[in-house]
């Protein structure tokens, strides 16, 4: 515990000061490794996870169309969450893990 007095707005708090307890607690991020990036998208099997928000499908299809045109994508695996507020299902994750790269969206 830190127990030293502080000055606030120029008022020396000195020895008579009180200790306040901070309310936010610690964050303990787990340690994950970012997956290695690929050297090229040519010939890749591409996964797409649509978060289910309005227009997410249109935006992602535009991205996929462009990537297909530029990189000869071998196959596209598409999943759409039925509900943006819930996590993707195990089945979806399993399918997407078998892809060379995945495009997802967040926000609305």
């Amino acid at each position, binding site marked *: 515990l830190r127990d030293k007095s502080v000055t606030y707005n120029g008022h020396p708090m000195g020895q008579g000061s009180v200790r306040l307890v901070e309310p936010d*607690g610690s964050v303990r991020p787990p340690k994950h490794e970012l997956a290695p990036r*690929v050297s090229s998208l040519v010939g890749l099997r591409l996964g797409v996870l649509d978060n289910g928000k309005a227009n997410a499908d249109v935006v992602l299809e535009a991205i996929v169309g462009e990537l297909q045109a530029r990189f000869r994508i071998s196959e596209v695996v598409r999943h759409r969450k039925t509900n943006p*507020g819930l996590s993707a299902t195990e089945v979806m994750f399993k399918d997407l893990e078998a892809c060379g790269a995945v495009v997802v969206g*967040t926000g609305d």
Partner: protein
Amino acid sequence: VPTATVCSSTFVALGEAESRNLGLPDLPLTVVPHPIGNLADDRARDLGQSAVPGVVESLTTGAPRSGQVIRGARLDMHQPVRLAADFSGPVDVLEATEIFSGRGWGDGLPIVPPTRERVDRVLDVLGRDPNEELGPVPPRWGVATVELVVVNAIMAGCPSQLVRVVLAAVEAVLKPAYNLYSIQATTGSVGPSIIVSGPLADELGISGGAGCLGPGHRANLAVGRALRMVLANIGGATPGALDRATLGQPGKIALCFSENQADNPWPPLHVELGYEPEQSVVIIDSIMGTTDIMDHTSNVAEDLLHMLSGCVGGSAFNHTQTGGHSVLVLCPEHAGLLAQAGLSRADVARELSKRASIEVGAFTGRALENVVRVRRARHFGPGVTRIPVFDGPEFIRIVVAGGAGPHSTFLPSFGEVTVPQVVPIR
């Protein structure tokens, strides 16, 4: 698998905080301008195409930087991690409020300074291990401990005996099925509501009487505010930062009440939920706001049911589009009229579930295609012209509260993404 995350601009702060606090601080985010959902198709396609360089850069090594990709979470909404969470400072209420709000803590109202002495005193009364962990609170994922909940409850003005209720409420919102992440980070106005049912409600002064959803009830406000303080300080749900609510609602400041035990014509809520009469529980729903229902003309149950079922749905409510558990707070006069006709609480829910419906034509084609037909698929079939507002009687919680007068209140659900929780108060 290398992943490209396309993030709309208003969610960048949330995206950065999530990637940092969930352990992938270098996750590349390709930023596109918000909003997306209301764009015409051709503009949405243009926006998708504009994201392609960022997507390619996110997935590959050695690609040129496009300027739209953020690599490495830069945002620091809160101070760095401090395990020894004490510091010295002023004790005056306004000075303490000032110093805390300067660090992003609090709810905008003056706080009671959580001095070491106050915290220790409450911990002594509770007799629980201060280091006991209740779990990480999204979307900041700060770890809530008994001591931290005490600190936040003191800030909200809770005397020690109310902290037991706050601890139960925190335990409830951290249950995975409650899906607090979605509630905290959405653009919707949702917040948790706390209903205290059981003998402790009266003992602790939690009101279910006149005006119990509004101002003037110290225990109601202190408990509701304490939960908000936990969600804001430990969970990091600061409006406009990680809390993405478009507007929010006053119920997010504090929303806690009990049943009106004296004027409730039915067995107490917790007993109907299967708990012993002497047990007290907190019941946590997730609600979008409060809507007054005025009916001072119905003098038979049939008329009142007709009036109630006509005002609990609408084309653009979350619960009508997606389902979920809503709360109907019946005033004692309305509840009495229904009970006199021989209806139980379950009967009322069943009647409302049967009667409340909405025309399919009330929804636009885009709403039907994108949301309603997907999320409430079970109600659609050949020739269907109306769908029920509720997915069944179990999706309507009937509560009796309030004072004299013919006003009930509807608390509409956030939707089916969240499941209400009941937790006994220790």
